């Protein structure tokens, strides 16, 4: 596999996984190439997306937020209204169908905030597949509601205690499980990361977000928006939102990544700002690492953004400057979480609160009579306990 071959986005991407997984990755790639062209697969996917997930998700004009911020008109692409409460279900359904087609009866997943674990457990229940979810022990605590739901759906949660006990370790553990059970198991990677073909498959399955948003906005306004914004951890909701707009040169694209507590290593997950090119979890991408190439633990108030790598396509979009990636601190995200909740009556996920913060600045810069769409990647029910805890700490 070379630089200009499939699976690369500029110099990023590729397949850097242990040899034991290569055969499964090749099988996945060839199966996906076939299914992508198959009318039957497309029809089946569309059926589940509309009858189970609830697509298309609405594009809501946020009138109160627009007035409150006093800049561009704000539109929200409502992935929070999907079944299970986030964009993650789009990918989980698609990959479960691919797994079914390959005859795999067991699915595994990694999860940070629990939304991907919840989506995988949900499709596991619906398709009757044995499901195992790897989740960092720290995340099991801070995202306890999702952890409980995953178990209620009949999936097994395996808490990972190694290292920082968050998403990075959960991902490593899921890869190890896959290596052991590769003939019977499909690993539903939750973000646009991992070895080829995962970043492409996840991007394609999430691209429905941007396609819908683009056509919904156009239908209503007979033009394209001036800007779009999404939050980026691994970056699946963002790449899904961005993809349909990448060729629209007049649409400015912004990504919000986790600036955490500050710029010191270990205090943030701002991969696109501080990351250097490297190899992690099967892909070549930007990674937060020290001068010797050891991965530095990431931090974010939001478990879903707490990852030291990023999808390779985002690394490429950052390098080519098609997307403007900006950092948002924990405090800024928390403030925006409360602001959006009180002003618009929507409780966003803490991940999405990062996108709202960038959107607020962009909306002010754009000024009135301009339009901006925010991908509301998921709802914040899962974060309520954590937010209350953080507010308690803040008031001390």
């Amino acid at each position: 596999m070379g630089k200009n071959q499939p699976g690369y986005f500029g110099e990023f991407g590729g397949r850097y996984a242990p040899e034991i997984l290569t055969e499964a990755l090749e099988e996945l790639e060839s199966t996906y190439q076939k299914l992508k062209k198959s009318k039957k697969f497309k029809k089946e996917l569309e059926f589940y997306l509309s009858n189970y997930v609830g697509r298309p998700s609405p594009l809501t004009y946020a009138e109160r937020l627009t007035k409150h911020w006093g800049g561009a008109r704000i539109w929200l692409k409502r992935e929070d209204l999907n079944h299970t409460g986030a964009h993650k279900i789009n990918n989980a359904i698609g990959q479960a169908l691919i797994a079914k087609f390959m005859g795999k009866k067991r699915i595994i997943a990694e999860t940070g905030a629990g939304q991907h674990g919840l989506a995988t457990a949900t499709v596991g229940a619906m398709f009757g597949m044995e499901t195992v979810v790897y989740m960092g022990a720290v995340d099991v605590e801070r995202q306890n509601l999702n952890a409980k739901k995953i178990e209620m759906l009949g999936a097994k949660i395996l808490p990972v205690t190694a290292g920082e006990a968050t998403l990075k370790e959960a991902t490593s553990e899921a890869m190890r499980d896959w290596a052991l059970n590769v003939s019977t198991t499909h690993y539903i990677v939750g973000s646009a990361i991992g070895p080829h073909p995962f970043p492409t498959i996840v991007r394609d399955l999430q691209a429905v977000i941007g396609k819908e948003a683009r056509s919904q906005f156009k239908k209503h306004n007979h033009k394209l928006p001036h800007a779009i914004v999404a939050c980026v951890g691994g970056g699946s909701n963002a790449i899904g939102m961005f993809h349909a707009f990448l060729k629209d040169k007049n649409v400015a694209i912004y990504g919000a990544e986790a600036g955490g507590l500050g710029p010191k290593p270990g205090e943030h997950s701002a991969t696109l700002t501080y990351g250097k090119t490297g190899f992690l979890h099967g892909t070549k991408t930007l990674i937060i690492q020290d001068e010797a190439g050891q991965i530095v633990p990431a931090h974010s108030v939001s478990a879903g953004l707490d990852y030291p790598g990023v999808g390779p396509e985002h690394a490429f979009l950052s390098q080519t400057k098609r997307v403007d990636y900006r950092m948002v601190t924990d405090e800024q995200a928390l403030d925006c979480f409360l602001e959006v909740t009180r002003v618009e009556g929507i409780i966003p996920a803490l991940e999405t609160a990062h996108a709202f913060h960038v959107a607020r600045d962009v909306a002010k810069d754009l000024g009135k009579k301009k339009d901006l769409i925010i991908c509301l990647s998921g709802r914040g029910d899962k974060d309520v306990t954590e937010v209350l805890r953080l507010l308690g700490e803040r008031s001390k």
Partner: protein
Amino acid sequence: MSKIKDLFESGKIKSAFIPYFTLGDPNYNDSIEFGKTILDNGADILELGIPFSDPVADGPVIQRAVARSLKNKFSFDEIFRVTKEIHEHKKDTPLVYLTYFNPIFHCGILKFLDQAKEAGVVGLVIPDLPFDTKESETLFQELRKRDMDLIHLVTPASTKKRIEALKKTSTGFIYYVTSFGVTGERREFSVDLQERIRFLKDTIQLPICAGFGISTPDQAGQISGYADGIIIGSAIQRIIEENGHDFPKAKQSLAEYIAKIRVAIP
């Protein structure tokens, strides 16, 4: 000619014993002594692990060893210093590094290879760098210029087509992964292990050494009957884990274990 090729062609050994341990566990200076002890008690090739924070191909024992090692300040200068001392203790025994690609990439491929060679290393095993990547091709060419080997892993899931394809960029020996999954001690191996190794020997004109899961003298004796070498990692690392706090005991236990395996291999 590479030192590894020399060793296998010398006719001195029927099946090579290749022990592995992670450098820096519990500290770098103890690693030097562990390396010397292993060499003194009968390693034909010694595999030294350069710790990486995210060892996805390794099981719990080696993961814990890596975590203990990284509690010490990691630097390549330290890695090369320790390696050099181990090498100087017994210069005839080939040393091989096992590590993941990210640290090598960060060090800079050419700089890393020059310093590794200088420290006495003659080959590399990189579990997350498949042979069909641009980086692997570059590495292979640079290694050849330095008479060093790139040792590829072949697994029970590797297809015939891939095995044929990796022949072009493989030297030293083939690291045959005995079972699915990650490193770690196992009670049983895949039933067709012997046939797979025979097939590989016929297909690739290189020695086939088996690893992943071998821990007991019985297993070592049995598998070395048909493999050109056996690689043992987790069982050795477990001895260091259980006794690392008591240096003399750790050294003695290592010496006894290595000697027992040595005797079991023809």
